[in-house]
Structures are given as C-alpha cells and as structure tokens.
C-alpha cells in the first residue's frame, strides 16, 4: 500500500517534470539552481521523504514545466543520483538520471578570497576533475574543492 502511494505521489502530475532522489541535504540548493522561485505553475516540494536509496530524499514536482537538459544537469553537482521523470497525461514518458557536465558555469562560488572571481564582476567556472568523489577545480585560480563542500551562489 505504501509502495503504490509512493508511485501515485510521483505520477500525480498531469504534465510536467518530477525530479526524484535528491539528497535531502541538497534539496534547497537544487530548488535555487533550477530557479523554482521564478516559476508560475504549481510546484510541490518534498523534503526528508523516506528513500531506499538515500535514506531520506527530496523531490520536486513542477507542473507544466519542462526544463532544458542543460538546466537539469546543473543540479548534478549536488544531487548526482537525481532522476528526472517527464510526465505527459499522467504517464511517465521519459525517465533519465542527471549527468554531471565537464564544466560548471555560474553555480559554485570559489572559496578562495584571492580568486579573481571574487573580486571582479564575472561568472565562475569549474572543471570536474574527479567524477567518483565529484571534485571540482576553479578554472581561474585552480583551487580544488569537493562538491559537498562547494558553496552554491
């Protein structure tokens, strides 16, 4: 009964996008990165839900919104196991994991106060140098940071 309620919870959208399996700790960062605040349609956000995979998870259900893949992949840094479900007419027509791009522009703040990015009006840029532990390095000052420690702008 609990299992089918979970399934219903995911498919309850008529049309839209569901992003599932977001680690609870990253949920609000993901909401910010996706610009959820700027959407006009209905959005349901779940936090600290039970998860077999993650222990607890977050979930975002946005009605009548289909994000470009590049936008979705921007959350891969902090939610590498997130899965995107595209819903049309109550059916999950597409299901795919987010994938970490090689370069991350504009989301992460560099932790080095002497980096040019913290002293000049410009976008940050990071390269993924280790996909296993998701380590990224600043394109400008070369400082390396693990994604879990990364500061999201």
């Amino acid at each position, binding site marked *: 009964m609990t299992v089918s309620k979970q399934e219903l919870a995911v498919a309850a959208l008529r049309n839209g996008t569901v992003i599932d399996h977001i680690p609870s700790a990253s949920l609000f960062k993901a909401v910010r990165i996706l610009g959820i605040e700027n959407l006009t349609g209905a959005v349901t956000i779940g936090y600290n839900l039970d998860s077999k995979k993650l222990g607890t998870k977050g979930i975002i259900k946005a009605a009548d919104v289909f994000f470009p893949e590049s936008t979705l992949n921007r959350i891969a840094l902090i939610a590498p196991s997130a899965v995107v479900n595209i819903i049309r007419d109550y059916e999950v027509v597409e299901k795919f994991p987010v994938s970490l791009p090689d370069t991350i522009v504009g989301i992460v703040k560099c932790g080095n106060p002497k*980096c040019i990015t913290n002293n000049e009006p*410009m976008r940050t840029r990071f390269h993924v140098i280790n996909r296993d532990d998701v380590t990224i390095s600043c394109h*400008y*000052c070369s400082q*390396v940071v693990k994604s879990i420690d990364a500061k999201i702008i």
Partner: protein
Amino acid sequence: MNSKSLVSISDIGRDEIMSLLDSARRFEENPNRRLLEGRVVATLFFEPSTRTRLSFETAVNRLGGRVIGFSDANTTSSSKGETLKDTIKMVSNYVDIIIMRHYLEGAARYASEVTDIPVINAGDGANQHPSQTMLDLYSIYKTQGTLENLTITLVGDLKYGRTVHSLLMAMRYFNPTFRFVACEELGMPKEYKIFCDENGIRYTEHRDFSPEVINTSDIIYMTRVQRERFADIMEYERVKDLYNLNSAMLTDARPNMRILHPLPRVNEIAQDVDDNPHAYYFEQARNGLYARQAIICRALGIEA
C-alpha cells in the same frame, strides 16, 4: 582568447617546451636581434616586482620593441574602481601583447579571455609563474645537457612555493625522480603527490637535508622558508635553519650538480656557496632574459 597566450605552464606541451628551449638557446647566442621592431608591448604590473618586470622589459628592448605600462596598480584607474576587464580591453587597443602580474589568482587567465591579443602571465598571486618555470627548465637543460631522467631535489617551502609546483608539473614529460626535502608543516601538498602518482613520477620525501640526498642529486632547487607561513612560531624557530645550504655540504656532490634558487635568497643559501662551482642561481636569473625573449616571440608568432 589568443591561443599563443602563456598563462600556466600546463598550457604548453612537451614539444612546445623543447621548442622554447631551443629558441632561448639561440637568444642566448644573440639576444640583440631586431625581431620586435615596430611592436609595442604592455607590461601591466598591478603588483610590484622589479626583477621580473626588468627582465621582461629588457627582453623587449634588446629585440627592438617598445614598452609601455605601469608597475603599481595604485597609480592606475584600478584605484578608481575600473574593472580588470575594462583595463585589459583598453590597453589591447594600443599594444601587440600584454605581460601582466597581478595579486589575484586567475587574473591572467581572465585577462586572456577578454582580449584577442596574447597575454603572458608574469605571476598571479600564489598561482602560476610560467616564465619562471621556463627559465628554470632552460637552466636545467643547459647545465645537464638534457631534461631526461634527472634526480631533482626540491628544498624548503614546498607547500606554498608556486615555483616548485610549476616545475614539478612541467617536468612530467621527462621521466624525473624528485626528492622533496621539507619540514612537515611545509611539505609538498597532497594534490601534487597525486599528480606525481597519476603521471608516473617517482618521488621520495625527506625531513633531513642529508649528505645522502645532496650527493645523489643532479639539481638542488632551494626555496626560502618564510616565517609568515607558520601557524606555530616555535615550529618555525625549530626548522628555520634545517634547510640551509653551505659550501661544506657540497664536498661530495656530483660534478654536474647545480644549485638553483628563484631568488631573492636570504640565509637558505650561505654566502660561501656563491663562489662554489655548483652555484648557478645568478646565471639562472640571467637565463630569464633569454627564456622571456623566447616566450614573447612565440606569443607573437615570430620565428626565432
């Protein structure tokens, strides 16, 4: 962005390094060729550095080029709040190439992205100083006849020393064996040891600057241990003289061994080493002229 910019030593591969070394050798044979006639070079030093600036300016002058620029950001529009981007775009209107030193890390990389003319990084904060690495490589090449299969000992501040990090990375093509001689607080950072492992570079770590280490080295690269780097002043007092070099320590060194230092040196190399045939640090500084001439000509696509 101009692909002939030199912002980090990792921008150029093995073949380009060898080509620059050949070019530097030809400049050493004749540093006064009018290859930069009609060209104007900007030296933008947002942070003072007399030695590097004079070296670059001499490089240009001896090749018949003209120099404009500044040696301190306080006298420029930066002090009025102008962004680096605006300054670079403005200067790009006047010159053929920009040579810049800046106190912020990544400044040269950013500059190279906002202009189409080549940018040479003369030092960005604690990050990169590729012309120093090229002159270090040239010095090693000249004194050892090769860059291959050498035992290179790095001594002193291996944690914060950008010159040793850069040299380590540049040497990856040449099958070196590195010795890291430093106290625990200033040891070679983990990411560089990982770099060595990933690139098949052999290295050993030592707390003692021992005769055994000295006598099996082809190159000893000395760096200064700075008081400011220590959280614990007692630790500094304990180690400050452990990594000094004096002439007596060199009696059984290999004949080909040379001592390098990026300068300025304080007491890590004793005055009595200066007259020792193993000392090479002043010639090393002179090699900076030739290495920089090579770098500038490469950036402008001038055959040298």
